[in-house]
């Protein structure tokens, strides 16, 4: 297996409007791949295409030996794609515990528990297990969203702006955690992020998007290149 997740020439439409144009990304296994770009360039659309939430109009997504193009989101999740959406999308009326338990759906009975490292990473969740997800503060919800994705024991973790609304100390923890997941748990990670310093610190590969297209692909160091940065300017 050379690569964990490959997307190839994706096109995506919202009604008549085209949001993605021939987007291709390759996530190397055991690596953190970051996608960057300004507002509205199609980053989230790409991730939603990967998870199956948005239907694509052309292109191919493959995961290991499987092609995902026609699989519904739950099949992809069960294959091992964990998703942390932008805007958290917590189940508001479920308690924190129940929110975490929704991740059990694709697991064997023996695996139906919350790995300890999750609570080490986000201790606040442990104290709030019985509070309803919707009542949490924004940052707490973001932490819950990440934790919830980890409960599914993903092989690939797809995160959409995971640091949004999170306090600095926990951002650092998340960074360390992603590295831990990559190194110790062998996860492949695909990350959309605006927070450049964060990317620079943890990403292995970067892709830069503009207007629905990939404008640049390369190692994380490329972030300091002028031509790359220009895509991120207003």
């Amino acid at each position, binding site marked *: 297996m050379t690569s964990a997740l490959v997307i190839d020439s994706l096109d995506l*439409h*919202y*009604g*008549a409007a085209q949001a993605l144009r021939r987007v291709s990304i390759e996530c190397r296994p055991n690596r953190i791949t970051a996608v960057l770009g300004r507002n509205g360039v199609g980053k989230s659309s790409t991730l939603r295409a990967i998870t*199956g*939430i*948005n*239907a694509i*109009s*052309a292109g191919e997504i493959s995961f290991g030996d499987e092609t995902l*193009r*026609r*699989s*519904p*989101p*739950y*099949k992809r999740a069960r294959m091992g794609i964990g998703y942390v959406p932008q805007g958290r999308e917590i189940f508001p*009326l479920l308690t924190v515990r129940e929110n975490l338990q929704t991740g059990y759906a694709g697991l064997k009975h023996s695996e139906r528990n919350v790995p300890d490292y999750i609570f080490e990473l986000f201790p606040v969740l442990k104290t709030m297990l019985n509070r309803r997800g919707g009542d949490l503060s924004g940052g707490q919800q973001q932490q819950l969203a990440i934790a919830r994705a980890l409960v599914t024991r993903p092989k690939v973790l797809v995160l959409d702006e995971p640091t949004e609304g999170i306090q600095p100390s926990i951002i650092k923890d998340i960074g360390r955690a992603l590295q831990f997941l990559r190194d110790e748990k062998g996860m492949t990670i695909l990350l959309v992020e605006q927070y450049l310093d964060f990317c620079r610190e943890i990403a292995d590969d970067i892709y830069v998007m503009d207007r629905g297209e990939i404008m640049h692909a390369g190692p994380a160091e490329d972030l300091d290149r002028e031509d790359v940065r220009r895509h991120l300017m207003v």
Partner: protein
Amino acid sequence: MITQALFRALDKKAIWVVAILLVIALAVPAANLLIPPGSPGHVPNYLVTLFGKYLTYAMLALALDLVWGYCGILSLGHGAFFALGGYAMGMYLMRQIGDRGVYGDPVLPDFMVFLNYSELPWFWQGMDQFWFAMLMVVLVPGLLAFVFGWFAFRSRVTGVYLSIITQAMTYALLLAFFRNDMGFGGNNGLTDFKDILGQPITATTTRASLFAATAIALALSVFICSMIVNSKLGKVMIAVRDAESRARFLGYRVEYVKLFAFVVSAVIAGIAGALYVPQVGIINPGEFAPANSIEVVIWTAVGGRGTIIGPIIGAIIVNMGKSYFTGALPELWLFALGGLFVFVTLFLPKGIVGLIGQWRGYSEWRNRPAPPSDGAPSGEAHASDLAERGENTKTVTRAPQPKPAE
């Protein structure tokens, strides 16, 4: 400013509707009265009354659409306003009978003589005056809507909770009007009318005039609704529909916006009811039945919610279907009607009116690759696809969605 608002009311679509209605208001009575029966072009009496009835239903549906389609208030009790307007008219017509009732009492309607009333109850006073009765047609539904809305909107009753209490309201009125002791004729209601404004109610000319009056009233309602929804207030109504609390944080008095729409709508419904009664010849508590109000919602949805023309088309088509099928397929018509509702929801999510927009978007859509055939997103994709393919105007592309578990 006001002229501008009036001008705006007659936008492209509305002006057509108003014009067509006004032409109908003249043409149909003319075709009925001037062209002799048997000649081509003659509109028989039967159809005049029938279509007069449909137009009152159209008015009711339009009234509902103002609150539901534009303001997000799903009233399941709009039939109550219609019925109250109808009763006010019915009371006037009852009093016009005078001593021609079976018991020959000059003042008391028959059912009161029979129930040993010695004098007219206070709420029947003055109803022999046309102007007063018409005032009541407007005032009673308006006032009920105002009081009901005042409390409900101030208490921030929304969504299904509001829908269900409007249903409770009409249901309670249904039961109350069924009671003989209420003084409204019990379940038989008010019937056996003789004249309206001194004209015999069954005369062809009266029928034709009533039809014309209804068409004009509907045209006026279209004009008023169009003026409202095309104004900034209309935008605020939609804002309230979609994100009520956000509108509050912008400083809009959501409860007044809703109250305004609700009262205007109730008044239109009441006038529709008042025009309905002389044309069908009876008003009875059945009009308060919750199922009737639900039907109004359905006409609106079938025609296309959140548009001016939609509810009118919906009301007329569904009722024409009902008239036709109850005669042509007396034993099967419920299958036809039920099937129509299912069909419309599945294939015309924006109603009959949306069909046109859908057609427009069709070619574009055809060139697109098919979405995944199985699986979860299809439901969503389907819904939003259709929404996208529909009108691309800025009004209502999306229906306000009450959150499921709230």
